[in-house]
């Protein structure tokens, strides 16, 4: 019996040792086109992608000890960076990588359970993860960021780009971006601050929506939430047709007429008016929530 217990303990110790074995360092480089495309795939861990002035892709960081290999290969203008893992074993595959790419590259980053950060990339960006946060600082080009469970933070440089972001559970923060934005969240808050838009579509099921940015003269702002307050603070003048309605909540506005009750039997309020020449369009609706609007 003692021998059996001893064997068990030795086995357990070996297992612990195996699982805590140190991750492997990686440092690899490959030549790349100055404005090519880089695909990056890492199932678990983290990915930081930076643009730089060199025509090379460099991968540094640590690979999980069960990772089979790091694939870094070129096919024409395309570069593939992939952490190859065993098909049926997801233990100890977590890899933390920093990837430097030519700054004009477009990138597509896919992970399952990993945070993604990108910075100084001038090409188009597509970022996907299932469980993890996405932080990006796009420069001059469009970005699409999707996560199921995690926050999304986009910090622009003020240039006009298209931003498409959605998360199921998490907050979305978009700062100093201009152009167009489509943001969607099921449970979480949306904050859009600074910048000016010709089109902004913000939807949430449960969560507040906060818009503190400009709306261009023919711009369209559409805000819709089921359960959550809406706060719209326009920076600068706004010229638009406004249609605002809440089924159960208050509307307070510092310009335009006062909101009217939709029915004497229900607590809903609605407000419709035109400000300026009315070139743009602002639509705000909520089922349960207060709406504040000012400039």
């Amino acid at each position: 019996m003692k021998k059996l217990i001893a064997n068990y303990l030795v086995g357990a110790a070996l297992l612990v040792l195996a699982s805590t074995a140190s991750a492997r360092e990686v440092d690899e480089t490959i030549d790349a086109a100055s404005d090519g495309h880089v695909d990056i795939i890492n199932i678990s861990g983290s990915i930081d992608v930076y643009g730089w002035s060199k025509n090379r892709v460099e991968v540094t960081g640590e690979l999980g000890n069960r990772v089979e290999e790091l694939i870094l290969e070129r096919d024409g203008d395309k570069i593939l960076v992939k952490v190859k893992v065993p098909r049926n074993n997801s233990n100890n595959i977590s890899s933390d990588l920093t990837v430097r790419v030519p700054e004009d590259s477009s990138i597509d980053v896919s992970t399952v359970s990993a945070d993604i950060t990108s910075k100084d990339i001038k090409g188009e960006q597509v970022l996907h993860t299932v469980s993890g946060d996405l932080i990006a600082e796009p420069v001059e080009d469009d970005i699409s960021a999707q996560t199921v469970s995690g926050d999304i933070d986009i910090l622009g440089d003020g240039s006009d780009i298209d931003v498409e972001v959605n998360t199921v559970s998490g907050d979305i923060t978009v700062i100093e971006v201009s152009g167009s934005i489509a943001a969607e969240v099921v449970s979480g808050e949306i904050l859009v601050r600074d910048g000016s838009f010709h089109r902004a579509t913000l939807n949430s099921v449960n969560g507040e929506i906060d818009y503190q940015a400009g709306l261009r003269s023919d711009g369209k702002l559409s805000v819709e939430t089921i359960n959550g307050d809406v706060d719209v603070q326009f920076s600068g003048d706004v010229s638009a047709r406004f249609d605002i309605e809440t089924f159960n909540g208050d509307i307070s506005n510092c310009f335009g007429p006062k909101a009217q009750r939709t029915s004497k039997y229900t607590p809903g309020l609605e407000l419709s008016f035109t400000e300026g020449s009315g070139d743009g369009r602002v639509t705000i609706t909520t089922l349960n929530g207060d709406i504040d609007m000012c400039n």
Partner: protein
Amino acid sequence: MSDRDDKLIAEANKLSTEISPERDLWPGIEQAIKVPQRSRWTPRLAQAAAVVLLVGASSMVTWMATKDQARVIEVVPVDLVFEQASFGGRYALGVGYQEAHRDLQAQLDTELERLSPEARKEVEENLAMIRGAIGQINKALTEEPDNALLQELLVQTYREELAMMKRVGGLTQHVMSREDI
């Protein structure tokens, strides 16, 4: 009164006051009263009509929901719907919506199996949250069936449900398939 009139009256009096039918019609009438009338709207015909209506309406809603486009909705009377998603008390979304919902749910279920228990739980909780919101709006719409805001929010929330199922299923599939490169 003239002789001519008297003659006409006398002739008229000779006529029978009853007209006997050529055959006895009662058995037929009696049977018609006792046996329930069969409408030209046979179940098969009604079903076909309903399917035609529902395909049109649901295609519109489903197209809206999955293509993220304009908010126009056609609805059909609830008594023509066999399998329905409620739209207030009076209307329902039909077969097209149900099919899209079923397909996306199947895809989602498959993809959820591949996620960690935590991520799966989070998705399921959020889906339940959307469905709770649908129930909430439906309830309000039952009390105020003509409320345009509620109708718009309900359509939007149905669309959001399908979009989320599509997005999560698609995203997971996309990310997982990248592993096979």
